């Protein structure tokens, strides 16, 4: 999992050094994106101790509706958007004191965030951007199990946030291609275990996304 994390970092960091871009669309827009995400090893804690959940990377998708501020806007150059995203990762391994065991089931996060991105417009069609988002996520443990024996099947709604950056490529005045990176996390959700205990788990997710936005 660390290798996947490092790969995403290596792929996305160069985006921050892209050259400035020309002025772009202003006004409302809608968009959608698809990408890959890596849910990091999760420290999971209940009143009996800590154990570790390891997940498989998976696809993710999101849809946005937002507003591009016009260049020179005193509030800053960038965009504000409402984003719905979905990430679902299969449980791969569960590590206890006795060792690692095969896991099953999945953890799914449905996020609804209000994003604020600052855009660095320049003189060409590439526009680097960076920003953050805050909101809520419904995180669900779907039939989590250890070697087929049930662990949890529950859900929780928690505060969530993300940090992101990337680069927009203006295909036309109203059409943008977006290659970006997102760091998505939340406060630790609490879930019921099948044995009656309650556990908290980390939710830290890295993703690389490719999106398309249409402006009006």
């Amino acid at each position, binding site marked *: 999992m660390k290798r996947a994390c490092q790969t995403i970092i290596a792929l996305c960091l160069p985006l921050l050094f892209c050259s400035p871009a020309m002025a772009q669309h202003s006004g409302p827009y809608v968009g959608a994106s698809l990408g890959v995400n890596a849910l990091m090893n999760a420290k999971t804690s209940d009143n009996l*101790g800590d154990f570790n959940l390891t997940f498989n990377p998976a696809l993710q998708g999101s849809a946005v509706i937002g507003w591009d501020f016009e260049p020179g806007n005193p509030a800053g150059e960038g965009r504000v958007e409402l984003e719905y995203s979905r990430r679902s990762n299969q449980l791969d391994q569960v590590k*206890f004191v*006795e060792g690692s065991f095969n896991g099953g089931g999945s953890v799914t996060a449905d996020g609804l965030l209000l994003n604020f991105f600052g855009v660095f417009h320049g003189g060409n069609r590439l526009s680097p951007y960076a920003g953050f988002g805050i909101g809520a996520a419904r995180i669900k443990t779907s039939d989590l199990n*250890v070697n087929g024996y049930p662990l949890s099947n529950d859900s929780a709604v928690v505060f969530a946030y993300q940090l992101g950056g990337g680069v927009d490529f203006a295909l036309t005045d109203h059409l943008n291609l977006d290659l970006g990176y997102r760091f998505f996390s939340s406060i630790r959700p609490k879930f019921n275990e099948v044995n009656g205990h309650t556990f908290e788990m*980390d939710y*830290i997710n890295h993703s690389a996304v490719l999106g398309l936005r249409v402006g009006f």
Partner: protein
Amino acid sequence: MVNLLWSGFFTVLLLSGCGWDGTPTRNNDFTPLTSIEIVAVSPTIAVSHTIAAGTSTTLSVKGNYSGMFTRDITDQAVWSSDSPAVATASQDRVTGHVHGTAALTATVGSVSATFKLTVSPATITALTITPAAPTIAKGLSTHFAVNGTFTDLTAQDLTFDAAWTSSAPNVATVSNDAGSKGFAQAIAAGTATISATFDDVSATALLTVTEPVLKSIALSPANPTFLTLSTGSFKATGTYSDGSTPDITSLVAWSSSNTGIATVIASGGTATATTLKQGTTTISASLDGISGTTSLKTTGGNLTGITVSPAVVTLVKDTNRNITATGTFSNGSTRDITGAVQWTVADTSLATVTTPGGNLAWVKPLAVTLVPTLITATSGSLSSNASLTVIAPQLMSITISPTSLDLTAGTSAPLTVNATFSDGTIQDVTNLSVWTSNDSTKATVAAGGLGTERVTGVTAGSTTISATYGGKTVPSPAAVTVRTRTLQNLTISGSFNVAAGNQVSFTATASYGDGTTVDVTKDMSTIWTIDKLYVAILTDSQNWPGQILGVDGGSATLKVSFGGKTQTATVTVTGP
């Protein structure tokens, strides 16, 4: 630049968000327990499943979880016996009561297992304690075990079932508590007979307790910082097996890992480190194979030059004066190193140089010089000279200055006596004069730092201070008027920023109710302290009160106390 800031931010973020890699502390109880196994802890009982009547042993329960792993779950088992009169079991032990057999069942959740135990009618014939004659130091402990031999020639560990006693509880105790049977604690040097008794059969072991042994050495100060060409003390504290922590500074062998940076020598119960160059060395103290270490950092630069002042000295025979060596260091700092250099005189029949302590050196001429002789200050390979000429003119007169003083009671001021000789030479003979106060209830006179003489106001009134030197008395004594004033405030002034290796002087000023202000920096009742000696130190409290030396980067609090008032100031040191 903006992109660089963003990239740094994201890098920190990402590195902190790469998941948990810690060690789990939770057991897997999601995988079902499918079977359990009862095992006797004693290997012989594990085979024979037999214990003697009146004895006990320990059984453990090992759980098998769906064939994936096993775990000791003895503490979760609930025990039962089909023949409680023959044997009973609990989480801790199984006890045989009378001859017979019993099926002992352990249940964890819905899973059970049975251990068939035979209780034999055998009786004890002999006991053997191990170890038979151990020696331990005061404060340490050892665990005795006792093994029983029975009439059926079987052997069984009876450590739990035996009764333990010590013949000398003041030397060593032995426990009869269920959780620590046979556990002996050494109390004091001596010997004690440890006995174990079972069914009227006993065995003994001789326990010898020696004086406590050293377990560790701690050095203080821990990881200090000293200036180059300075000295500092270390203390070694030993922790012994009995928990005592005596000062063992004079007992340990001291060493420095880099004697080019600092050396350390023990003498008279004190270990003194002398720093030579800037760097880091490890100071070690060893005793009986045990060592304690601390890191010593030296700051303030390396000495690059020495300047002696005055460079040309002319002194009248049988007088004296102080001489100073100032060091120039590689970090650009300069400081007084009078007390750190070695002073020599080319012709020792003509003069001597004495160093009474601190940054003070006195030149005392012994004989008239035909040609000037050299006074040399040396540190390592560097040295500097001053030329000394000794003359012997006739003393003509002495004068005191100032001729009048207006003092606040409780404060002091310096007085000076100058002698005029037949060749016109005028020389300060303050510290060689005999001083008297006409009324010591009003003002007293005593030696101050650097060979000065200070008169201190005692109570309101007037008096005179006189001085005598070489058979002559000052023609006009100093008139001293002492007034009583109420101290209102105390302030510190000076430069509060200093570079490591440099010295800076502060002034303490007392303000009185009538608006009078008095410099009390050098008053004998003024006390200067500084709290972080690895940041800054007082240069020389005796001769240079109020002067500090920057040691290492940081902030320290300088405090001055006078007349019941205290004032503090924060001193910031940059460097090294």
